[in-house]
């Protein structure tokens, strides 16, 4: 019986997704993308009214109105897409993974319809540097600070035969004492705050921390609850942010590699 299964596996085509196809891929994440030609002041107003997590906001800057989209707060609910009359599409490409908190924010001048924020890093740049990243090993400890388990499901998927994170020399380890990187999901609950700090302390320096998902980046839909302390950076220092609710495995790969790239480029 087991022989049949192994034989079958050998006959099947490999399901491994090449790294070039993973970087910047966000299929299934429902991340919004602003279509600038369609953006009017009225539509922008509508967008900020429907957004349930205030990921979309309007702000004044030197007398001009700007639409602010904070991907770290976005849960991809799709309400802006419904209300946007074509001004909001589902993103087909997303590189703001593993970036700084500032880089998870995009700004558009509403009157001139121009984007005020540069692209975090070009996929070409990341691809060019990928081989230097792949000569290294990285031990990752996943830490749930109060997540709904959506992010856990996607992080667990990184070890399946499609993503196979081990090919990059990246391993999940059981103890924080063996870890180089902490992948933290969820808003930090009151009941977990102490354990998060203790786990962070247990990691040998130098340590990298990645806040994963809308909750980890900003508190997400749970922001303001009496039972949470806040986002991950309210409790421990964070090196990179991976938006999404939950981020897809491709976004997680992009994010982990981007944090590494930035670390090495330093």
């Amino acid at each position, binding site marked *: *019986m*087991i022989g*049949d*299964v*192994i034989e*079958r*596996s050998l006959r099947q085509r490999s*399901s491994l997704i090449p790294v070039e196809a993973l970087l910047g891929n966000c*299929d*299934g994440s*429902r991340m919004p993308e602003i279509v600038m030609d369609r953006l009017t002041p009225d539509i922008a107003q509508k967008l900020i009214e429907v957004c*349930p997590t205030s990921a979309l906001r309007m702000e004044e800057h030197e007398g001009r109105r700007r639409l602010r989209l904070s991907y770290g707060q976005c*849960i*991809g*609910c*799709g309400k802006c897409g*419904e209300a946007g009359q074509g001004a909001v599409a*589902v993103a087909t490409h997303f590189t703001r993974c593993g970036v700084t908190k500032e880089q998870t924010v995009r700004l558009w001048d509403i009157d001139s319809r121009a984007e005020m924020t540069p692209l975090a890093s070009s996929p070409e740049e990341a691809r060019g540097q990928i081989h230097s990243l792949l000569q290294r090993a990285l031990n990752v400890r*996943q*830490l*749930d600070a*109060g*997540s*709904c*388990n*959506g*992010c*856990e*499901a996607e992080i*667990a*998927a990184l*070890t*399946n*035969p*499609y993503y196979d994170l081990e090919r990059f020399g990246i391993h*999940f380890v*059981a*103890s*924080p004492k063996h870890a180089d990187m902490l992948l933290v999901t*969820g*808003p930090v*609950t*009151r*009941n*977990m*705050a*102490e*354990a998060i700090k203790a*786990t962070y302390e247990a990691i040998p320096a130098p340590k990298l921390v990645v806040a994963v998902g809308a909750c980890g980046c900003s508190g*997400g*839909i*749970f922001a*303001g*609850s*009496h*039972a*949470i302390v806040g986002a991950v950076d309210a409790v421990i220092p964070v090196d990179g942010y991976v938006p999404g*609710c*939950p981020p*897809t495995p491709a976004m997680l790969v992009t994010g982990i590699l981007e944090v590494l790239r930035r670390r090495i480029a330093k």
Partner: protein
Amino acid sequence: MREDTPSVFPNGERASPGTMLTFPQSKDGGRARLVTIFGSLGPHGARWVHYVCDVGNPAYSEIVLPADGPLQSIAREVPAAAWHERELHDQYGIQIVGHPDLRPLVFHDNWPDGVYPMIDRVDDVPWSKREYRFLQVQGEGIAEVAVGPVHAGIIEPGHFRFSVVGDTILHLELRHFYTHKGTEKLFEGKSVEDGTMLAESVSGDNCFAHAVCYTQAVENACGIDVPSRATAVRLIGLEYERLVCHISDIGGLCTDVGFSVAAAYATRLKEFLLQASVQCCGTRYWRGVAVPGGLRFDFDPGRTAEFAQAVARASRDFSKIARMILETPSIQNRFETAGVLGREAAQDLAVVGPVARASGIDLDVRRDHPYGGYGNHRIEVPVTHYGDVMARARIRIAEAAASAQLIQDAAKSLPDGSVFIPVTSQGDIQGFSAVESPRGELCYWVEARGGRVTRCHIKSPSFQNWPAMPLTVAGNIIADFPLINKSFNLSYSGCDR
């Protein structure tokens, strides 16, 4: 709750303080199964306690008692009520008389005494230091092993306190609610529509069941009938979620006994399904699909048919893997007789879902209290009485095949028409809904005023099933604990909320 549901103390009628609860009988003459207990606030801050019971097809029964004084505990007669009553005490400050164990459940050492989130202001709660006493098992050679809240894997946090002699577990005490996020309180003030997104974040891998259960509660409250095309698509989503969860669970069981080939196959099949779902509706876990009144968008018939084909293929492959797993002697050796949950204990704790069905309790919301599109389908409910890891695995394997078949049937006969009907929820409304999630009976009770949620209670199957898990590990070796725990597959976040 719908009008045809009997209510012993209808809302508004006050029983005198200290009135004992008369627990309803089920239709077969036994004591009705406890579904949930929760509090709500009436005018002028009056506290009410709601007891919901399953008295048999088709109705759920609700009893509402005033809680203007201490409440008599029913936990000694109905052990399933124990955690519910502790939560009432923690959240509403209701005194429970005669409870065998009233230690704090939801809030930990950092929470000050006398602050009750559902009745007090909680914008700036000070940090405190209380002491929590674990049960002490004493005797020669007995050691304590403390595990968690941070576990050695990609899993959720919780604390397990084992008392062991050598390798053998004598007693296990749980301490959970590390992921408590105050979700029920957060619903308050949300628009009825936006409540869906919070429901989707209660338990991520069962997010569609939560979304559908919440939206159904709102729809029941407003008395609207969702278009049949929407209920058919929801059925496909609910069964897809069950299929994915069960495949993932079987893979997890194989991981825990070191059977890597089958485990890798299961993760591959799960990912194949998630990607097929992206092709069909743009989301892996069906977030942002359900909304009160139906669906956020219509499903393309061609893509839905392709999705059904992908499901059929995955199901065929899974049944082969499943057969291999069940026929492997070393697997049988580990799965059989491990972590036995007897029928009586299962009944006492009112467990639900695959765990209940593996312990001889014939229970399935889809068949017993049909909702959405389930009235149009024949639901096969596999039941076995062994109550061990193998029984729970067999139930999941049988259910996965049935779910795949239901998806085929529903996709073949997808009704035409719209997928959304506007919900008008301006007045005072109350609604209840139950859904058979992959982990079992999930319930939402929603109260809203002027289109804003004023109270939302979530009874998750994990909250009900967690207390049963420790009973099954006594007498097993500690190395079998991860396997037994996985065979229950309970959600920490769903339990803690």
